[in-house]
């Protein structure tokens, strides 16, 4: 499809395990964002890429969280030593231009992570 694709749609893991979540943005979109949505809350910003570089990673909660976008397209969010509090829906969005003020963000359906 032409939209933002996220895989897996659901991931169940055990506490302490390593997890990778993948985001395929809309082709040609230079900006890519990761947000996290906990139950009953609005999405919270994690990190923003412009091309291959992280323009703003101020939302990453701690050093267990890391994200890459090596070729300026697909991005992977990596979570080490998962904790039960990491359980949430992880949302990816992309935009053709610099950010939400200049271009619309298109969101994927999210990856639901459950840490047992």
């Amino acid at each position: 499809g032409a939209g933002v694709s996220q895989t897996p749609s659901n991931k169940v893991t055990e506490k302490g395990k390593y997890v990778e979540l993948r985001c395929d943005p809309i082709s040609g979109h230079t900006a890519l964002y990761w947000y996290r949505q906990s139950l009953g809350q609005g999405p919270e910003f994690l990190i923003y890429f412009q091309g291959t570089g992280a323009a703003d990673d101020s939302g990453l909660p701690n050093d267990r969280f890391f994200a890459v976008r090596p070729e300026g397209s697909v991005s992977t969010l990596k979570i080490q030593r998962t904790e039960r509090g990491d359980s949430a829906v992880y949302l990816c969005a992309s935009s053709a231009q610099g950010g939400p003020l200049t271009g619309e963000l298109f969101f994927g359906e999210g990856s639901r992570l459950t840490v047992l």
Partner: protein
Amino acid sequence: AQSVTQLDSHVSVSEGTPVLLRCNYSSSYSPSLFWYVQHPNKGLQLLLKYTSAATLVKGINGFEAEFKKSETSFHLTKPSAHMSDAAEYFCVVSSGGSQGNLIFGKGTKLSVKP
């Protein structure tokens, strides 16, 4: 610091009646404001945005919102609800410090009764 408060966690209306979803914002400067909608098992979708142009902003599916600086509000309205409007709605403000950082409210779940 920027923030938004959605005053109702759940709103229920009958089909064909008006919709009002309330949002107040806090910002140290002139904000950019958005409303996003999230249907079950769908990605978030932009309804409309305000970026310091006209204070009455029209969006998709008949929704509109009015920026009122004196009241620090950005309420979302629609004259006549449709069953397909049932969804979660998020009021959002741009952080300003980063082009990528949107600050979401906690959401308002809209139910539409037949």
